[in-house]
Every structure is written in structure tokens, then in C-alpha cells.
């Protein structure tokens, strides 16, 4: 076992890990941050995407030890400091960009990385960027729409939206 130290969602953390321990395992089992999901074992589905030093990576194929000293951000660290949903999270809710919620953390983390690089991506750019994230529920329509909306684009022509209840 080796000691690993990193910053996760702004907090310094450390733990004893094996050489084979994956970042996803360290986050879920070591830190109890179960928002990061594991949906496959071939680095295809993207449910496990987190940010390491600002870059979106698949935590299921990143060794925990590789992240020594790194800044890691997970879905648990995406809300605004006051606890309210961030712009991207809010857009996913407003535009029904999630159903079962399992792929959602990875989708939000990937979308956030995309918007950091490309503040107003086209539909085609969004679809291309999401190639490493699989969703079985939404048919992607409302995910793409939510990301466009989060970037300030008009999506009113793309079907029904939530009406604020209560």
C-alpha cells in the first residue's frame, strides 16, 4: 500500500492505495464520493468522468497514484458554493437532460469540460464531444439541448421544456 495525497473538490485528502487502485475506486470506496459511477470496464461509457487538473478524464482508467498532488473535481463539487445548482446542472434539470441519472455525473463533467474549451459549441460539436459518454435513457436529445442552453443558445424550437412548478 502506498499513500496518495490529492485535492478533491477543494479539500486536501489522502489515503492508502494499492498500485492497481483506480481513481474511481479511491473516490467511491476510499472517500465515499459515490456520485462518480462505473458503468463499464473498457473505458467506453463515460459515467466515471471527473476533472483532473481541469481536464476531463475517465476515472475508471486512471490510477489513483497517478493523481498524486492533483486537483480533482467530481460531480459532488459542481454545485455553486451556496449549494444551488450550477448553470450546467440547472440546464440539465430545466431541459430534462437526465432520466435514470446513472450516466448523468459523467455527462455533466464532460459538458462542463467542453464549455470551458468552447463556450458556444454547435450541435455537431456537442455530439462529437459526447462520443465517450453513453446514455441509454434520453436518446441524447435533451442532453444536447441542455448543453446548448447552458451555453446561452436559444433552444426553444427543440421541444417541450419544464415549467417551474410551485
Amino acid at each position, binding site marked *: 500500500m502506498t499513500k496518495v495525497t490529492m485535492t478533491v473538490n477543494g479539500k486536501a485528502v489522502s489515503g492508502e492505495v*494499492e498500485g*492497481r487502485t483506480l481513481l474511481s475506486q479511491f473516490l*467511491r470506496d476510499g472517500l465515499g*464520493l*459515490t*456520485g*462518480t*459511477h*462505473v*458503468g*463499464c*470496464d*473498457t473505458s*467506453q*461509457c463515460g*459515467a466515471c468522468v471527473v476533472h483532473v487538473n481541469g481536464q476531463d478524464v475517465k476515472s475508471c482508467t486512471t490510477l489513483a497514484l497517478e493523481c498524486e498532488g492533483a486537483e480533482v473535481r*467530481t*460531480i*459532488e463539487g*459542481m*454545485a455553486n458554493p451556496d449549494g444551488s*445548482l450550477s448553470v450546467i*446542472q440547472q440546464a*440539465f*434539470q*430545466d431541459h*430534462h437532460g*437526465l*432520466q*435514470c*441519472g*446513472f*450516466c448523468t*455525473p459523467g455527462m455533466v463533467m464532460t459538458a462542463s469540460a467542453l464549455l470551458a474549451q468552447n463556450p458556444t459549441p454547435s450541435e455537431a460539436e*456537442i*455530439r*462529437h464531444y*459526447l*462520443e465517450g*459518454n*453513453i*446514455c*441509454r*435513457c*434520453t*436518446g*441524447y436529445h*435533451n*442532453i*444536447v*439541448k441542455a448543453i446548448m442552453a447552458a451555453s446561452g443558445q436559444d433552444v426553444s424550437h*427543440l*421541444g*417541450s*421544456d*419544464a*415549467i*417551474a*412548478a*410551485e
Partner: protein
Amino acid sequence: MPKDHGIGASSKRREDVRFLTGRGRYTDDINLPGQAHACFVRSQVAHGRLNGVNTADAAAMPGVIRIFTAADFEGVGGLPCGWQVTDRHGAPMQEPGHPVLATGKVRHVGDPIALVVAETYDQARDAAEAVVVDIEELEPVLDMKAALADGAPKVHDDLTSNLCYDWGFVEENREAVNKAFEAAHHVTTLDLVNQRLIPNAMEPRVAIGDYNFATDDSTLYTTSQNPHVIRLLMGAFVLGIPEHKLRVVAPDVGGGFGSKIFHYAEEAAVTFAARQLRRPVKWTCTRSESFITDAQGRDHVTKIELALDAEGHFQALRTETYANMGAYLSTFAPSIPTWLHGTLMAGNYKTPLIYVNVKAVFTNTVPVDAYRGAGRPEATFQLERVIDKAAREIGMDPVELRRKNFITQFPYATPVAVEYDTGDYNATMDKLLEIADVAGFEARLAESKARGKLRGLGVNCYIEACGIAPSHLVGQLGARAGLYESATVRVNATGGLVVMTGSHSHGQGHETTFAQVVADMIGLPENMVEIVHGDTANTPMGMGTYGSRSLAVGGSAMVKATNKIIAKARKIAAHLMEASPDDIELKDGRFTVAGTDKSVAWGDVTLAAYVPHNYPLEDLEPGLEETAFYDPNNFTYPAGAYACEVEVDPETGRVTVERFAAADDFGNVVNPMIVDGQVHGGIAQGIGQALLESAAYDEYGQLLTGSYMDYAMPRADDVPFYTVDHSCQTPCTHNPLGVKGCGEAGAIGSPPAVVNAVVDALQRAGHTGVTHIDMPLTPSRVWAAMQG
């Protein structure tokens, strides 16, 4: 003006905040104190005699607690099948045993042989690799027709053959149908394959067994669409645990699509192991493992024939289907190619004579069972494909041919035993042609041509039977279960409500829509209603969620229970206001005496129910809590029309879906936003089936498409934005909400639209010999078709 709350409003989903912030609680997020970890040793061959399992070396490895083999499960029952089909000669289907761990033989790659329990998952996995399994390989049977040949190896040695059943429907019509074909003006014939699919809910299955030896209570946490069904099947048939000593919890579940309906061996194995070891045992499926253990879907080989008269009226329909059951009968497998398929063969059309023959076959492959649509996509695909082919053969526009044969009078009793209550197929077709801008197709075709691309338009209809199901009817058809649903509505003293439902949400948003319904009925804000589901300890016995049944059946139970609440609350209000209950009106959460200005608030009544100082105790019990069970009178019949436009690259055969439109009639709609989302997801799964997905086995029975690197899941850049509409509404006549169900429509209606569109594109480009291409329409298949 769209509604902003209650029934008909696109209320935002209350589930979303926890999912968007990483605070969902899925089964794999649960870790119990003292928990051990499980890993299964599985067959690596498709068919073989299991001569021995040597666990000695593995048992000595670090952290290993115990290794269970089939011998440990002696006295434990097998996994039960929930539906018995009777064949066309009146005999029951052949029903093989299904042990929790393989005994005597292994019958598919992935068949579980041993269960290793260790302190950590990695230790369990390392030890599982050290278990030595002695298997004498046998020739596998994979092709269904070969499996039925004389002398074929048998999957189950104790059965007479690999034929599960030979089902005829309606058997009495067989000769009349044959005669109609002899007399027909025109007969269109189509041979097709509805390929095997792998459901692939994004959350892999997980099961955690827990046991309290001091109280003899067992708990199973599992990724299930129907925890009560699992409790009943596992408790009564497998482990012999009475239901009051067994709790099944299905917390947040990451998608199901049918694959999480069934009772799986792993659930029983970890519950059993936990009892033996007196500590929790957790198993988390890897994706690779789910590819070879989750029940798969479809896998039909069909010949369909349609007889028409000189004007294009359908005279008769005849089908012969081989349906793959895989190696064992999964929980509801026998019902899918029969009662959920044969009964839908009338489609939207008044074909007077129909005969459906289905031969269900055992093979050395993963068991096959319900997958989104379950039998209905198979029925729709063959029917809508053969109609398209017939239209081409007789030189009629495919939409006109459909309209000519539409059922227009309701109720309508089909020749395949179901009665459609309502529908308006011309209305959904009209709406489709409008939203798909079919009028603009020629211009888009010209534009594609200018870029060197072929373009095609495919249109089709669908109907499905949802709201499963009237218990007395399915009982006659062989179901070993009732298919009612339940709800308990508990009103608290301060006026808030908790609704405990037997339905289960795994992406459908019940916590939002169910609250909309109950809040609307009483006239309260939606946030005063909480929905509880997924735990047998705090919900009434329910049958769970599948077959687009939750709102139609579960919602109806909830309406019944809420009506009981309102009736009692009205009596309490009458007492408080010294009026007759008949004069009490409930509006916006306030009770008034009709024609007066006297009123009491909802909270006054609920408080009186629990603090009954001024209360008619001689007539009414205190408290405000009611339970209702609802058993439907009939199925519901959502229907619609779908249109797909594709481009085909003539150089490579690559198909891209350029436009997709869906006009659905779901009856009344509670949350339009959620309904749109359900249709979107179904369409993507249908496009996936049409263009990308296929479970491929090699000649040895190895699954070639055993990971996301080989099984082509639809991704964001494989699909377009969809245009969906559900404004054509013919409400269901026999449930209180008038709802029909929307969960499967997209997956049912979309595959034929895509294939019709590709065939259309090729035909328009002069490939007139191409009348069908089997799914998935990969570039190589489409390219080969274009080469003649």
C-alpha cells in the same frame, strides 16, 4: 397556455437534484458494516459436462472466506419461470430446471458455477481465477433451426428436444387463414430476422444480501424494477424464506428496459451466502459480466405473409416465427413471443384473419426475455415491413395502403383476442405528415442528390398493448402472477401526503408525475406530496414497473386510494362545518359547504383526523390513510405514426438518420416533458437496433459483442434531434386517468421507420431488387445490397 402545475404540466423533476449533485443512492453506493464481497466463477464454454470444481487452492488464498459450489445449494430451489405457455396441441411447454449454480452441465458462456466470497472484491476476483473447473466440452446448439433438427445436441438432457413450445394463435383460424391465402389476389412474403439485442441499462446489476441471525431477517438490496416480485419468487420458490422475514430494497436504479424485471441467480446466491456466513455479501456486476448474464432481447426469425385483394384491402396475415429462449427460461420469457407478440399482429389494421405460429427454441446462449417493447417491437417490425413491401409490389403509396386498411371504429375486437378501446390512426398519421414535413421531402431529396447522397423516407404505424394486465385474463393465458398494482396514501396530521406505490421508478420520474396527479386531485402544491417506492418494507405488495404500466395501473391504484382519502376527508369536513357530506365541495385544497361561505382548510381536516377532539368517532375511525389495489379491465392501446429520413452514402453504404418524427396517441398526458423524454429514449434504442446493435455469437457460442468496444451502442453523434408530438389524444376509456402509457412506444415504432427509409433510398436510386435488409443496417450490409 400550458399548465404550470398538476396534471398536464411539465413540472421539473424532483429526482434531478440528487442525481445532478452525486447524491443518488444506487445499490452499488450501499456498503454495509462487515460486508464481504462476492465474485462468480462462470462457464467459459457454451455447452459442457461439468465433471468437477476444485476450490482447494482458491480457498487458501488471502482474504477468502468461503467458496460455494452447487453442492452447497442442495435443498435450495431453482429459479422459477413465471409464465406457462400451452402449445397448439394443448400440451404445456417444456420447462427445464434452472439451478442457482450450474449442476451437471453448463449451458451458456457465463453460466455461474461457483461463488467466491472474500474480504475484498479484488481478493474474491483473484481467488475466482484460481478455482479449477473440469468441463468436458460438448457441441453447442446455436442456430434455432439446427437446434430443432433430428439428432441435434440437447441443451437439456431431460427434455425430449430443444423445442420449448410450438404455439398457434388463433389455432382455430389456421385453416380459414390458409384458405384466404389460396384465394388471395396478391400475396406479399417477407423473411426477416429481428436480431438479438443486449438491453444495456447503464447501471450494471448489483445484489447485496444481508442477514440478521438474531431476528432471522434477510434483506436483499438489488437493482430491480419490481422488488415485491423478487421477494415472492426468491422467498417462496428458491430460498424458502417467508415473505415477512425477507425484505427486498431496490433504491435508485439506473435504468432497466426490462432487463431488471427478472429474478437472477446472483440475487439468490448472495442472500443465501449472507445467511450462511452471517454477514453481508455484496456482488457488483462488471459490464463484461452483464453482457453474458443479463437477459437479452428479441432474437426472432420470421416469415410473414400478407394476402390482399385487388383494391389493396388486407385479407389475411400469416406468420411463422422461431423465437430464441437461450439456455434457460428467464422469468417471463415464454410470454414474450406469444401473448405479447401474437396479440399485436393486427396492428392498426382491420385484417379479418390472422394466424401466428411461434416455435420457441432452447440454445446454448444467454437467456432471452423482455426488452423495451417485449414482443411488440417484433410484431410491429414484421407487419410494417411487409406492408411497405406490399405497397411497392402493388404500386400503391405506402401511406395510402395503410390508411385504406386502418381500423376506424372503436371499440374494435381484433381477430387476435384483444379489443382496442380507442384510437384515431388517421389523426396521428395526419399529424405525422405535418410535423415530419413530408411535403418538403422532395426538396430535401434533391439537395441530398446534389451532394452525391441517396435519400429515403420511411413511414410506419404501430400499436402496442400496455397497462399490463387484467389478472383474470393473463391467468387464463398462463401467467403465474396477478398483474394489478397498489398504492397507499398516508396523510399526515399537518396535511402533507406520502404515497407508497408498488410501481418502481428507474428513470421514469414517478416521484414527480405521481405527485402531480395526487396534488391535482386535492388541489395542493406538488411539494406537499412525497412518493415512496422500491422497498418491500414500506410499500404495499405491487408488481412493479414494465410494459408501460406504471401510470395506467399504478397511477389508477393511486387515484383510487386518493379518492378514498377525499371521501373520508369530506365526511370530516362535513362534521366540522355541521353540514351534510353531500354538500361538501373540495377545491384548491379547501372544503366548502356548497352555496355558503363556510369553509375549512385541508390542514384543518387532516389535523382533526389525528387529533379527534371534535370528530365523529362513532361513525369514522381516526386517521387518514387508505390503500387501494387496481386490476385493469383491459390493456391500453397507445398507437401512432413515425417517419424517418435517412441519407445513404452510395460509396460506403453508411446510413445517417437525418430527420425523425413521431406522432403518438398516449391518451391523456400528465407531464408532457417527461413523455417527450420517454419517446426520445425509445427512438434512440430503435435507431440503435435498426443501424448499430446486434448480439453476435461465434460458432462456439462465444459472445463476440461482449463489451462496448464491440457492441455498438447508439452515441450522441449517431442520432439527430427528434420531432415528437402527442397532441392527438383519445383517452383510455377504462382507467380513471385516461392514460395509455408511453415508455416503450419509441422503441416499438422506430425500427421499421428506419429500415423502410433505407429501402426507399435504395429503391429511388434504382436498386429495385432491394426489398429488405436485415438489421442492423451496417455499412457493409447496405453496400452489399447495393451491389445486387
